[in-house]
């Protein structure tokens, strides 16, 4: 006897709740339904899944959250201190979304507006080819229940000098903010995106993001995300990019806040000459747990990717890095690197690193490596011998360790904020 299988539902992300998100636009509704189908079909993650073995799903506390309703326009958006440094600024809070500043060179609009004005764009790219793996549960969840959607499209040959800032802020206890971002870079377009995630201290909430990037031939994008959510918050992030011939994507995710973060990032260098520089920095302390999963898919020959993640752990902080380089059949001439360096600052910190390769082609160079270590006592001694206090010496060395990633951050303000937050974390241990 064949019995109908129960849909796989997580907490309050139910079919009844889903109905509340429909009715915006036929195109987005269709995309949501498609995602919801995946969401209910894919089994819920369990602790025995390899991806969740070190970060069991219960740590994400997904049962504790209710998605915020679909957000409208925020009439009184907060002013972000970095706003002047950017060509375009978007703010997302529980009160809604506000495009505070934009440039006539770009198309920056909410997902619903974009669906009405450019339905073919949403049709083609949302849940498109950027994700080179089979549908994933949490991404399908966000793609079904997103309460704020944003589309950024840059036409060909447009160079946006100062870039786009997107600020997310959440503060309601038990709320889940689910932002959905679609970025399409036209041929030879050049631009940068900075995402800044903040939240009210000491509240339990979730930010679950889904992003897709499509880079046409010759396009160049730099993306950085600064995540400084409250120490109780949960963060889930899915980020996928499809890179065409001669296009380059450079990313840097700074994971510093939240209680538990589950990040999946990957790219498909889909045409010869495509280049991807993925990277990130994380610093887990005070029982924070950051779990990163990356995929460098080379579906085409003569492509390049370089993944660099650097992390530090202390005070029972725990980080997990699982990375894969995958070269498809026939992808000769691929040049791929994957590096994960970890600094374990005290005996209670822990970092697990699992780099891996899946190679189905010949004549290529794929290398991966991971390091674990603590601060070099000789270097601390050297600095102390020159009159620098031990705490300052440690700070300098940690900053130096992360220094390699700094050049990937296009915004001076984001760089400064990164150093500030790392300094604060180190100070928490000193005191």
């Amino acid at each position, binding site marked *: 006897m064949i019995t109908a299988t129960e849909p796989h539902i997580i907490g309050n992300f139910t079919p009844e709740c889903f109905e509340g998100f429909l009715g915006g636009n036929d195109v987005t509704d269709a995309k949501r339904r498609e995602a919801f189908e995946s969401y209910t079909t894919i089994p819920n993650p369990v602790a025995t899944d390899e991806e969740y073995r*070190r970060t069991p799903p219960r740590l994400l506390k997904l049962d504790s959250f209710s998605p915020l309703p679909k957000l409208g326009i925020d009439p009184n958006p907060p002013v972000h201190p970095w706003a002047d440094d950017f060509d375009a600024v978007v703010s997302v809070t529980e009160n809604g979304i506000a495009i505070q500043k934009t440039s006539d060179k770009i198309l920056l609009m909410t997902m619903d507006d974009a669906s009405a004005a450019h339905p073919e764009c949403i049709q083609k790219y949302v849940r498109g080819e950027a994700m080179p793996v089979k549908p994933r549960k949490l991404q399908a969840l966000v793609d079904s229940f997103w309460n704020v959607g944003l589309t950024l499209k840059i036409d060909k040959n447009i160079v946006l000098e100062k870039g786009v800032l997107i600020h997310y802020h959440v503060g309601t206890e038990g709320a889940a903010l689910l932002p959905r971002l679609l970025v399409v870079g036209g041929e030879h377009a050049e631009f940068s995106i900075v995402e800044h995630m903040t939240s009210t201290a000491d509240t339990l909430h979730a930010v679950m993001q889904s992003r897709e990037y499509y880079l046409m031939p010759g396009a160049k994008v730099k993306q950085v995300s600064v995540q400084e959510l409250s120490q109780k918050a949960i963060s889930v992030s899915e980020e996928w990019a499809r890179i065409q011939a001669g296009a380059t994507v450079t990313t840097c995710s700074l994971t510093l806040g939240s*209680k538990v973060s589950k990040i999946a990032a990957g790219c498909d260098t889909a045409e010869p000459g495509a280049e991807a520089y993925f990277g990130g920095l994380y610093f887990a302390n005070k*029982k924070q747990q950051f779990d990163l999963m990356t995929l460098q898919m080379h579906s085409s020959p003569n492509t390049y990717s370089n993944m660099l993640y650097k992390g530090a752990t202390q005070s029972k902080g725990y980080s997990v890095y699982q990375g894969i380089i995958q070269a498809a059949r026939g992808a000769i001439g691929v040049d791929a690197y994957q590096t994960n360096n970890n600094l374990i600052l005290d*005996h209670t910190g822990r970092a*697990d690193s699992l780099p891996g390769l899946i190679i189905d082609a010949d004549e290529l160079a794929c290398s991966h490596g991971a390091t674990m270590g603590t601060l070099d006592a000789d270097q601390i001694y050297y600095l102390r011998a020159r009159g620098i206090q031990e705490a300052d010496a440690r700070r300098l060395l940690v900053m130096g360790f992360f220094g390699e990633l700094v050049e990937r951050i296009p915004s001076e303000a984001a760089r400064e904020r990164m150093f500030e937050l790392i300094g604060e974390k180190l100070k928490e241990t000193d005191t």
Partner: protein
Amino acid sequence: MSNWHEVASVADFKKDDRKYIEVADEEIGIFKVGQEYHAISIWCSHARVSLMNGFVDEHCIQCPAHGAEFDLRDGSHMSAPAVRPVESFPVKVEGDKIFVQVEE
């Protein structure tokens, strides 16, 4: 700052010799050996596998995945592949109630 948390009762251990608890963001296994109660972090320090289903012999618990052994009394590692201890937590019994001390 360390606080005592009431986490179980003696009656909980009539059928089973172990109990999983979550307190102050710690995941702890309480094990009864003879008339003593011990509390350790459930995560093996080798490959972060849960010790809750580990085989217990006297005061020694063996990780079900790779066989690393730990002393339930103080969390110290007793055999490879573990090269560092698991955290242990002080336990006290008052009447029928079991308390665990956790640093917050």
